[in-house]
């Protein structure tokens, strides 16, 4: 009842681990893969990158704000780290890549033979020359996608930012470039100030808001993309309960990603899976049947 097929990936349930959450080590990805439909590794670029200084993540009553700054060991070193997922992982592995140019994006795919699909980070809101900086220009998005598609046979997903005037415009550009699915959304620009020290709480001053606060914002993006695109939409942003999963599916998400909710527990996906199983048993419908139902 929970199984989903997404661009040829067979997933045991529609829940994927979102990029950047516990995705820097094969060991945590393997652990989470036990109950995930798929896992997305932390975004990786060609070269090693330090990321911002601590503090890079803060939590508030309604979610998290992070400015990790795409820290990563670089493609070669990360590929080595991920190798053990091939034998021990229990679900498809999606490798998230960031870069500044179409060529650079395309050059990344060959490093990761263990990947079952690629996710293009066109949406990190707090990185220079990467993420949103390249992902808010529809022309560039189309080119990036097209170039990456030429470099690999595997499915390619484009992860979009909500920090644009019209996310559908970017989604359409990705679709025209030949992308297999869109992922909506990455974090929403935001920040927080400590009133005692009178300083921004993040070393980078601002970052991206994730978690429950952004759920209605992400849901609206999924709704709009589902309406206007032909390709599948993967919903992400604030999903914390099984009801949230259903809400995103009804809005049009074929699959969902879960990030910040792991804050509450490593076993999050397991308990969501159990609840979703109970739900489908009760309604008698598979989750796949519910995709986009709220549009009817």
């Amino acid at each position, binding site marked *: 009842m929970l199984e989903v097929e997404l661009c040829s990936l067979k997933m045991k349930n529609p829940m994927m681990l979102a990029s950047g959450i516990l995705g820097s080590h094969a*060991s945590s990805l393997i652990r989470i893969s036990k109950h995930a439909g798929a896992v997305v590794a932390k975004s990786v670029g060609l070269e090693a990158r330090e990321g911002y200084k601590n503090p890079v993540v803060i*939590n508030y009553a309604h979610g998290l704000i992070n400015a990790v700054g795409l820290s990563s060991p670089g493609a070669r070193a990360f590929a080595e780290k991920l190798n053990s997922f091939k034998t021990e992982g229990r679900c498809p592995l999606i490798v998230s890549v960031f870069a500044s140019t179409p060529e650079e994006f395309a050059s990344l795919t060959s490093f990761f033979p263990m990947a079952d699909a690629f996710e293009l980070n066109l949406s990190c809101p707090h990185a220079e020359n990467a993420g949103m900086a390249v992902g808010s220009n529809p022309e560039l998005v189309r080119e990036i996608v097209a170039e990456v598609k030429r470099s690999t046979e595997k499915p390619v997903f484009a992860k979009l930012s909500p920090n644009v005037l019209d996310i559908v415009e970017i989604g359409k550009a990705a679709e025209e470039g030949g992308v297999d699915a869109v992922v909506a959304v990455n974090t929403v620009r935001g920040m927080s100030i400590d009133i005692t*020290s009178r300083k921004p709480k993040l070393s980078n001053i601002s970052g991206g808001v994730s978690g429950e606060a952004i759920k209605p914002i992400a849901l609206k993006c999924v709704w709009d993309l589902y309406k206007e695109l032909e390709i599948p939409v993967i919903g992400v942003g604030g999903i914390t309960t099984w009801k949230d999963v259903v809400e995103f599916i009804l809005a049009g998400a074929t699959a969902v990603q879960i990030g910040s909710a792991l804050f509450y527990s490593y076993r999050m996906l397991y308990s969501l899976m159990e609840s979703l199983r109970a739900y489908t048993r009760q309604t008698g419908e598979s989750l796949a049947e519910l995709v986009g139902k709220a549009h009817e």
Partner: protein
Amino acid sequence: MYCVKVEKVVRHNKDTATLIFDSILPSYPGQFVMLNLFGYEEIPLSLSSPRSITVKAVGETTKALVNVNPGAIVGIKGPSGNPFTPTDTKALLVAGGIGIAPLLYLHDYLIAEGANVHVLYGARTADELVCLERLKSYEVATDDGSKGFYGSVVELAELKPLRKYERIYACGPEPMLRAFHRLLKERRLLDKAEFSLERLMRCGMGVCGSCVLPEGFRVCVEGPVFNAAKLEW
């Protein structure tokens, strides 16, 4: 994040100090805080008592912390992480270097619980041994023999009837912990032992994944205290 004031700074030697806060942080021994010295980095530090940290200068932030003036405001996240499992019987604490910090808190806590506590404490030189006056029963080891046993604290531990202790707690540099792990394994005592580990921490709240061990555990959530038997060393 919230802020606390550093009320008092006790310098132990040229690069180690204890910072005492103006308020108690509800916590258990073994838990850590993410401490933000504004203008520097936010770093993980174990509590050395419910209202203090004991820190050794190894880089920019720790250097600045050791030299901080009383009255300074610092940002705190936590206390968080898995604490030591307490006991009220016979306990052995094994510290290497600044690894003494969380064990100081544990020491006081276990004694208040009525436990019988003995400490083995190693450092490179006598000068690096701190807070000895807080310890009720201890033996020290120094690499250069400048005080106590001449050798490492693990070598010292090897000479001890470890089986006598109901629980064994250790914290220190990873090579030391690995050596101690081997010793405990030989003596089939891993089950009784808890180790406090360190890893590079970014978020300190279980989401970023930078502190994950090869076993899949997060040092910031499932740790920093782990049962030694769980470590595939």
